[in-house]
């Protein structure tokens, strides 16, 4: 964690896009992830996919 305090903050934002926008406006390095529920939001399919991993 000490290395986090000593380096430039670079953020990956996953979820609410507004959080990435405010960081970008401030000049913080940020990459937004347009996240979507995996397996089309189908829980049964998701647990099947997780088993395959």
């Amino acid at each position, binding site marked *: 964690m000490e290395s986090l305090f000593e380096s430039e903050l670079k953020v990956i934002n996953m979820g609410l896009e507004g959080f990435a926008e405010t960081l970008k406006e401030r000049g913080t390095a940020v990459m937004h*992830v347009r996240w979507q529920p995996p397996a089309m939001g189908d829980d049964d399919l998701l647990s099947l996919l997780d088993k395959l991993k």
Partner: protein
Amino acid sequence: MVLKSYISENTFRDSVYLMRLSNTIRNFEGVIEAEVIIGTDHNKKFLQSGGLWSDEIEKGAGANDLIIAVKAENEEKAEKAIQGALDELNKYVESENLLGEFIPRTFETAKKNLPGANLVLISIPGRYVEREAHQILDAGLNMMIFSDNVTLETEVALKKKALEKGLLVMGPDCGTAIINGVPLAFANEVKRGKIGIVAAAGTGLQEVSSLISNLGEGISQGIGTGGRDVKAAVGGITLIQGLEALLKDKGTEVVIIVSKPPDAEVTKKVLEAAANSKKPVVVNFLGGDLEQIKAAGCEPAATLKEAAEKAVNLIKNENIGADIKDLVVDEELVQKTRGIFKDEQKYLRALYAGGTLAYETLIMIHKKTGPIYTNLSFDNVQKIEDVYKSTGHTIIDFGEDEFTQGRLHPMIDPALRNNRIVEEAKDPETAVIMLDLVLGYNAHPDPAGSALEAIREAKEIAKKEKRQICFVTTVCGTDEDFQKRSVQVEKLKKEDVLVFPSNADAASFVAELFG
């Protein structure tokens, strides 16, 4: 009256964007109720309970589809609102195409495209956090989890893994943090400096960091832990990890810990970790045992304001008590305020957006005012039966789940609280309406302006019945926030609203008034 819906297949937008869009089309002429929402099972139940259900939604909408549901006066008005929502959604796609920016869909792709990324801010639905968070830790990145509804088991597992790897997991349910001077999620624009804060209390961190900045000093790091961190089941993992990191950090000279009283064994561990430090540690366990903190060699602070002031004095190498005045209440103002009330106006109605600020008020006033009814969890007070109706002295936190299900947090959209201000004015027993206005990134662009619309209406209602209500407020934030604190304060003062320099000052005024 008609109910119309539209389903846009394979369309996903984040919840805050959709709630804003819902608000936009609710304001269309002739619209009675409207929601733009993703078709998950949970959301479908929400539509059912809200009377926006149709066969079309039941048959046609899946978890990756977007539902626009509108109840309106007639067919034409409903269609206009649906078209309005579709136009907004199209604008969004067009602006994205125009910018031509690459927007990754997964963490792995984002990581490849942002070399040196060192922190992930997660605000996805809680039940998906576990999957994503493990791969983030495995890839060696720190995390701030804004999402709530993450299980306790997941929180413990993630924090233990992070600890082993020397990584930081802030949250779940962590609404604010400042890392390397960068405000994350709901944080304020504060000066950089040498005071480090670790907080299990979101608006507590906002209040302390803002007060420090307004006193001319600054923040090195502001680490949020999420409120559950200080429960025995989690064991204060992040609080202690954050504290130890700040004690080692070259940029930090004084440390502040802010939290509701942790479970006993966690308190012991936290104070032990602080006791070994060469740096001064100021501790505010809201309502916790000050003597226990002192005995551990730390500096106890009874309020968030006192924590900020003590840390500033320590940085300035001044006597720790220098300039710290006890919360002196203006007796003249108290007498004058009492003089405006009719006999039946006996009660406080405190309507809060910030949970920690509401809690601070509760612990500061309950011994003086007598019984308080609230939706906050606190051993010594009565849980309110109906959160939508005040009784006696009432303190309501509008950030609690019952008010935020399917709605924006009151710091972003104060509509529910504004309605309540007007409702309280109709009650002849209401004497004081107390509000916190929280500024900062991602918050409402003009909290004072929005509250004043409701305050004016409330004043009119009271005036018609020859009553006067006293409005007590506190503005949490700085002049560097985009809403600019001094502008917000001026607006309120112009309309005879009392504005106090901190939440603790406002609470002590109210305690005196009803004491």
